[in-house]
């Protein structure tokens, strides 16, 4: 089971960030969210927090996406020492998506009105 992202539909409203922080912390703060939306001029890109890595990689750089140059760090899901996202802002504890428990009921998908995020089985 996975969360499928369609960046062409995403509108950049960030309700997923709000839903995630509300579900995991009981308050609303996008900085404590396990999903982050990168808002661009041409499209918006939700990225869901993946596993923690202890070391930053040095293989990233600028990649092409949709004909636009994009920093690969932006689309990388890892919580790593080189990035400030996917970490608790106060403690630095890494964050990772847990599909909101068992059975999976991801709140970001529930709160995504345009259905840019969908839960799929494959």
């Amino acid at each position: 089971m996975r969360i499928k992202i369609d960046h062409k539909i995403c509108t950049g409203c960030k309700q997923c960030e709000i839903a995630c922080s509300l579900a995991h912390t009981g308050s609303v703060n996008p900085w404590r969210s396990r999903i982050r939306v990168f808002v661009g001029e041409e499209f918006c890109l939700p990225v869901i927090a993946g596993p923690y890595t202890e070391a930053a990689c040095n293989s990233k750089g600028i990649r092409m996406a949709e004909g636009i140059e994009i920093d690969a760090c932006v689309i990388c899901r890892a919580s790593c020492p080189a990035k400030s996202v996917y970490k608790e802002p106060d403690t630095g504890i890494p964050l990772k998506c847990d599909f909101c428990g068992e059975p999976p009921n991801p709140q970001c998908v529930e709160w995504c009105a345009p259905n840019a995020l969908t839960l799929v089985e494959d």
Partner: protein
Amino acid sequence: MFGWHGRILRIDLTRGTSRVEPLPAYLMKYYIGGRGMGVRILFDEIDPRIDALSPANKLIFATGPLTGSGAPAASRFIVSAKSPLSNCVASPCCGGYFGANLKYSGYDLLIFEGKSPEPVYVTIMNDRVELHPARHLWGKVASETESTIREEMKKLYDLDNWALNSMGIADIGPAGENLVRFAAIMSDGGRAAGRSGLGAVMGSKNLKAVAALGTGQVNIADAEGFRKAVMAFYKEARDIGEFYKRRRYGTWSLPGRANASKSQAAYNFKAGYSEAFVKYEDPEVIRDLIRVRDEACFSCPFSCGKRSRIKDPKYPLTAKGPEHETMALLGANCGLGNMEDICRANYLCNELGMDTITAGAMISCAMELFEEGHLPEADLGYPLEFGNTNMFELLTQIAHRQGIGDLMAEGGIAFATKYGHPELFMGIKGMGIPAWHPQAFDALGLQYATCSTGGSHTKATMPFYEGRKDPAHFVEFTKKDQDYIAAADSGVLCWIIYHGPLWAEKLSEWLTYVTGIAQTKEELDRLGERIWNLERLFNMRAGITGKDDALPPRITKEPRVKNRVVPLDKLLVEYYECRGWDQSGVPTRKKLKELALEKEGDETI
């Protein structure tokens, strides 16, 4: 504390200092936030008779308890100050990311006082509030200002891409710097707190921009109940197709509807219909032509905003909109019939930082003066009949106060009076009338005429309620609408989504879940009424009287649309009575006592 943070950030630009103050409890209780708090603070702290462009004016950025709480469509912030255009109280609102970031920084209100000796911009990141020199930004257009500030913030705070794109910036373009009286405060790539000319107030304070990035939180009193209520609301909105309609067309569905029903502002309100707009009656046509992507405000599942682009190397960037009001005022009202031209005009106004509605009203006034032979070509330097694209040049001249633009920057009344025909400027209290033609609905004319900030599209609007065309009720509904909008502007909820009977009760529901303080609909109605009366008292102190509740003679005397005129005098009598005001539009002591505004009233009347 739930919902609010209970903190005011006050920045003294004269001295370059800032301090944090507690938010008084009575403000939270009686004024909730946003527009309510804004007008209350202005009423208490400034003399309404001051020159709006003097350092004595204060500029208030206000959020509400719902801002950033995750309540659907609750991202807006209100900017309050005395207006240099109408001399009334002003409280334009704006969406985007700025409001939420101000809130996440830990402040409910941000107040600017005095005047900086040098151009500055302010960055706010939680408790770090800093003033930076902005000499290098002065003269830059809005998009360039924002991108430069983002670059500087990146270095200053060591920000990554996500944080950079999550922050909010409110800034002014050259029009605000040059004190054009209808300059807008621009935000986040083309959104605007546009009406009332507060961009000029910002410019008069030498304040180029405010950037906010907050990493804090908003506490929710009943998080689980709130979540369930939002999900139930989602289901309802999805079932009636509201999500889809708003996201697909936004306000682009309106030009067609207005045109087909002959209610569109066209040719300086000489008509309610533009032949050239017939081809845009299907919103899919506009969508195919210019849309880049659907762009939501923060925390809004409806996403009615649109980012657009035209194929013209002179206009390389994407722009926000144009929204319906812009299409009508800069388009049909100026005789433009080509969507690409409308986009150019919209792009120019966004970059220069001008209110597209009043700018449209100014241009159309100049066009009519020119066609009637009152405005000589020698004064302009080029012909300017309806539909002439020389208006782009004129827009630029206004923003930079060059040539005739210098006079036009002083507003429509000054301009049209100079050329002997003040009646040809289609404005109310100096502010251009928005897109829907007032003659199309009597109640609309009444709404515009009595609006406390002038001809505003966000304070006076299409009557919502059932039976709105029933003459026996629409005065009453006008009052209800006005009060409801004032309450929603205090939440702060986007009333464009939560209008009238459609989900009006949601405001009290969200407020109760988020703040934990039960709010009934009756209390919120009283809140709206209190705001409306306090705004009236402020305006009276500023010298505005019942005589200013007027419409241009074209609306009340010449039947241009549907062969009707607005019987304003008759409606005003009923309206004042309905409001509990006397026949010259002054609130009665009885009404003020009911709203706990006796003391304020006694000092004013």
